[in-house]
């Protein structure tokens, strides 16, 4: 991972956009929010979209002739253009709004998988998939008779690419792999996987839930057929996600949800579908949320995705190194200088949930559990771990607060 030479972020002034970061928890401990891989915080610029929308031009979109509907339609449709630009897609035709990453994956699994998969086909995942991809493909495979294969994750948390090349053979119909692991922090070689998939006439889906928020992503460079991510992990609102699909792939695919706005013509006998991307957006869409997500993309681009990545790498490296000083701490995944902005670990003799409860008393918000990757935890042979995850508004001092508060837990359990 190249350490781009970046101007350090002005974190002080960025934090002013996030009033929640000034909050206290418990008995007055200042909040140290390090649960960003679960959900990021939302800047004023995005929050304001909701009052502007509902106070100014709330209306149903697409079909209204009156002015409110015109204004809402244009803003909602342009939000697709904005997201297309943000991830390097060709245009709004390639960007479908969903409610989250999970729905995006299910859309592909139902609309493509259920219709195209069968006996003799293989779906290739990795051992570190999030449940949203793991469970979905497992279930669709079971229904269709397809086989699921898991690319091995080696002891350092990297994908075993020899194993990948073995599994992605001519039976492979779909390769669905996480781009940045939400537990190990591993960043996978997405373009290499895409080439392997395409060499074998398979499609590839990249799970960008932990990459789009944290680093510049260009789906055209990655050459993926599908790419999925969530608004609530990239400074955007809850309840909105994206499915990117190559235009020709989305055109060929059957619809998923049926209803208003996704049809062209309906009779008692048959129905024809609307054009992209609306063919995949049935019913009244996530209007305010979509406009809010575009505002989040604006915000992130203003800060600068390169600068965000550089800042997060500094935080992550520092956190890793400070935690690594302790003999009773075990960190999972690749080395300090080659990972996304998450550090999952355990402290000897202290269960992850107990640790998280005690850290919460010190204002430190981290996640404890299996992080929706039970199979990976089975492989690591641990029931749970704690995970600290960073965003561009976090500071080195917050990393220190995390590390220092571990002592409180050691005192209790020591």
């Amino acid at each position, binding site marked *: 991972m190249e350490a781009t030479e970046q101007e350090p972020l002005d974190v002080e002034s960025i934090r002013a956009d996030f009033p929640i970061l000034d909050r206290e928890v418990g008995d007055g401990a200042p909040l140290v929010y390090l649960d960003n891989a679960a959900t990021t915080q939302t800047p004023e610029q995005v929050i304001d979209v909701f009052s502007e929308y509902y106070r100014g031009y709330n209306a149903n979109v*697409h*079909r*209204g*002739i009156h002015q409110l*509907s*015109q204004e809402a*339609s*244009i803003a909602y449709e342009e939000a697709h253009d904005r997201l297309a630009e943000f991830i390097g897609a060709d245009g709004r*035709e390639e960007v479908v709004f969903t409610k989250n990453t999970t729905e995006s994956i299910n859309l592909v699994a139902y609309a493509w998988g259920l219709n195209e998969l069968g006996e003799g086909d293989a779906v290739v995942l990795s051992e570190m998939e999030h449940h949203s991809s793991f469970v979905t493909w497992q279930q669709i495979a079971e229904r269709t008779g397809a086989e699921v294969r898991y690319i091995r994750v080696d002891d350092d948390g990297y994908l075993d690419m020899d194993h990948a090349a073995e599994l992605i053979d001519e039976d492979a119909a779909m390769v669905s792999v996480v781009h940045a692991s939400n537990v190990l922090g591993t960043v996978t070689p997405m373009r290499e996987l895409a080439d392997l998939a395409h060499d074998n006439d398979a499609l590839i889906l990249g799970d960008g839930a932990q990459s789009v928020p944290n680093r510049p992503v260009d789906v055209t460079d990655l050459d993926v057929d599908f790419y999925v991510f969530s608004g609530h992990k990239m400074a955007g609102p809850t309840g909105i996600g994206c499915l990117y699909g190559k235009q020709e792939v989305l055109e060929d695919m059957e619809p998923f949800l049926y209803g208003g706005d996704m*049809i*062209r*013509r309906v009779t008692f006998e048959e129905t*024809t579908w*609307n*054009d*992209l991307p*609306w063919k995949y957006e049935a019913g009244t869409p996530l209007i305010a949320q979509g406009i809010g997500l575009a505002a989040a993309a604006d915000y992130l681009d203003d800060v600068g995705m390169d600068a965000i990545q550089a800042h997060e790498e500094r935080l992550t490296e520092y956190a890793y190194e400070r935690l690594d000083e302790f003999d009773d701490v075990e960190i999972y995944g690749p080395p300090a200088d080659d990972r996304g902005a998450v550090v999952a670990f355990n402290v000897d003799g202290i269960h992850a949930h107990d640790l998280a409860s005690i850290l919460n008393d010190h204002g430190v918000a981290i996640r404890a559990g299996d992080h929706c990757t039970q199979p990976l935890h089975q492989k690591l042979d641990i029931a749970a771990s704690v995970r600290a995850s960073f965003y561009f508004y976090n500071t080195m001092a917050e990393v220190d607060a995390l590390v220092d508060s571990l002592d409180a837990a050691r005192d209790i359990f020591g």
Partner: protein
Amino acid sequence: MSMGSDMYRQQILDHYRNPRNNGELGDATFSHEGYNPSCGDELEFDVKLEGDGETIERVAFRGDGCAISQASASMLSQKLPGMTLAEVKELDRDDVLDMLGVEVTPMRIKCAVLSEKVVQDGAKIYEGEADVDQTSTEDDD
């Protein structure tokens, strides 16, 4: 701010009430139909080419829909004869709006351009460049 009522100039209403070239051609070289899902407007155009297989000799259309879509079809049907298919395919939204001579409000643009899209798609299908059952205005912008 363009006002909706401004769209309904006398010329538009006249074409709406008395559409030119309304009907069918018995000897059409090709026909094509289109639909505007946001309005329910429907149009079908018949096109007869000259012997050169390139220049439009005559057109006729049938349709159902709002004043904007039907007037636009009627006016276009007068403009097409003498144009080559290549020229037809070059037409864009602005040409249509110029032809109508009124300011069309954003949500009605699709009504205005339906006729142009139908004829263009018909030409493309005829020349083997496209393959659509029915034109729709949804993918317009």
